[in-house]
């Protein structure tokens, strides 16, 4: 993959990373959007769509409530799409490649929580500067301080993207050389594990009345219809 492609994905990472908290919150940051968008710009939207769909369902129940910082699914989506496309076909089916890039990208995405926290701590320093400016009577400069937070969130997004793509590229190379013979078969089952775990986690986290009845009935009816 060319340097331009990595740069294009970095721009998507920055835009989606800012949408996550700092600007807009139109939800282009969600994996179901961010990953196919990355794939589309890099020439293969369907790989991105598969990665985005699996990630979206895995974390559909994770909520950004209060001061809690959820996993950085945005950067995992963008980074894993880059990893899958950079690996080419590598002798694997598309589904196997999607699963492998997610297995590599997901643990590295934990770095996102650290950088996100760091950005919010940097933002707290803006308050100190705002107090200082008010004490000095320079109140006109206070609103502009707010925009510095964009840099902090932007840097955090790009740092996470860098770790997923940088670390992931190294690890993908090693993983592709050491894959078990029947990885395609393993990946086919893991393909089902993603949605199953995501759905279970959502049902486990959300305390919804009659959820067992509703889920079982809709599952059985849909199974009969399909």
């Amino acid at each position: 993959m060319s340097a331009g492609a990595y740069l294009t994905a970095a721009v998507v990472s920055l835009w989606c990373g800012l949408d996550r908290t700092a600007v807009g919150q139109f939800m282009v940051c969600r994996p179901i959007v961010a990953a196919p968008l990355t794939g589309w710009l890099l020439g293969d939207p369907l790989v991105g769509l598969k990665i985005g769909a699996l990630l979206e369902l895995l974390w559909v129940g994770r909520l950004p409530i209060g001061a809690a910082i959820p996993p950085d699914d945005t950067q995992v989506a963008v980074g894993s799409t880059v990893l899958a496309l950079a690996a080419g076909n590598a002798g694997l089916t598309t589904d196997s490649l999607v699963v492998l890039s997610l297995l590599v990208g997901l643990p590295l995405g934990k770095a996102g929580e650290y950088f996100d926290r760091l950005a919010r701590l940097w933002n707290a320093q803006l308050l100190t500067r705002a107090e200082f400016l008010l004490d000095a009577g320079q109140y006109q400069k206070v609103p502009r301080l707010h925009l510095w937070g964009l840099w902090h969130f932007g840097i955090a997004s790009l740092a996470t993207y860098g770790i997923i793509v940088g670390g992931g590229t190294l690890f993908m190379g090693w993983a592709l050389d050491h894959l078990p013979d029947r990885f395609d078969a393993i990946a086919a089952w893991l393909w089902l594990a993603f949605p199953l775990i995501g759905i279970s986690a959502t049902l486990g986290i959300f305390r919804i009345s009659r959820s067992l009845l509703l889920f079982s009935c809709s599952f059985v009816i849909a199974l009969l219809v399909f």
Partner: protein
Amino acid sequence: MSRWNRKNFILVLLRTFMLQASWNFEQMQSLGLLFAMVPALRRFYPEDQLLAVYRRHLVYFNTHPYLASPLLGAVLKLERQAAEGAPEEIGIHEFKSAVAAPCAAMGDGFFWGALRPVASATGLLLAFRGSLWGPVLFLFLFNVPHLWLRIVGLRRGYDRGFRVVENIQRCRFPDLSMRLKQLLVVLLGILAAWLIGDRFQGLGWASMWALPVIPLTLLLGFLVQKRISPLVLLFLMFLALLTWFHWN
């Protein structure tokens, strides 16, 4: 003092989209709220009073970013009344403190906990069929109510002042959340059946073999409730599959 006009409204509205740019653990959205209000405050107050007004707003504030719009409109109405010397019906700080937390809870429950997962699940029904309309549908379903609340909420907030709370109550967000969550469970059931049934058909297995998925889902849900991370469960499954395929 200058009145609130269309240009003001648009400027404040655009700035609400950056409410959380300086989100921090100490005062959360305080600087963002001030940033959003500045175009209006500069019209309401003379220069020599702005320092005190800015200082007044540099205190802890946190609410849901979308429900912040009606609150912001109401705060601006109160600020205008204060600037005009009208008798105070409710203190600005008192109003912010009283409504921010309940609105945060309602907004989190409705937008993050109900609407977004339902929009996701609906989009996923298309996405798992390989249709790029899935993400588009997700964005549409989520952003229509989102943008409506941002735009209309700011307008209503400014028109009705602190009484906008009654408008928010009339939206019945908790009831809507519960209905949407029930719809989410149904959509997840359909999605699970479709994904698993499709894979089993590919293996030549009868659909009835997918039925054990229901207790398996309950077991996994129980483990997540016991604070076992979904990521840990995923990698445990990966290890189990590696071991199985190694020995078979």
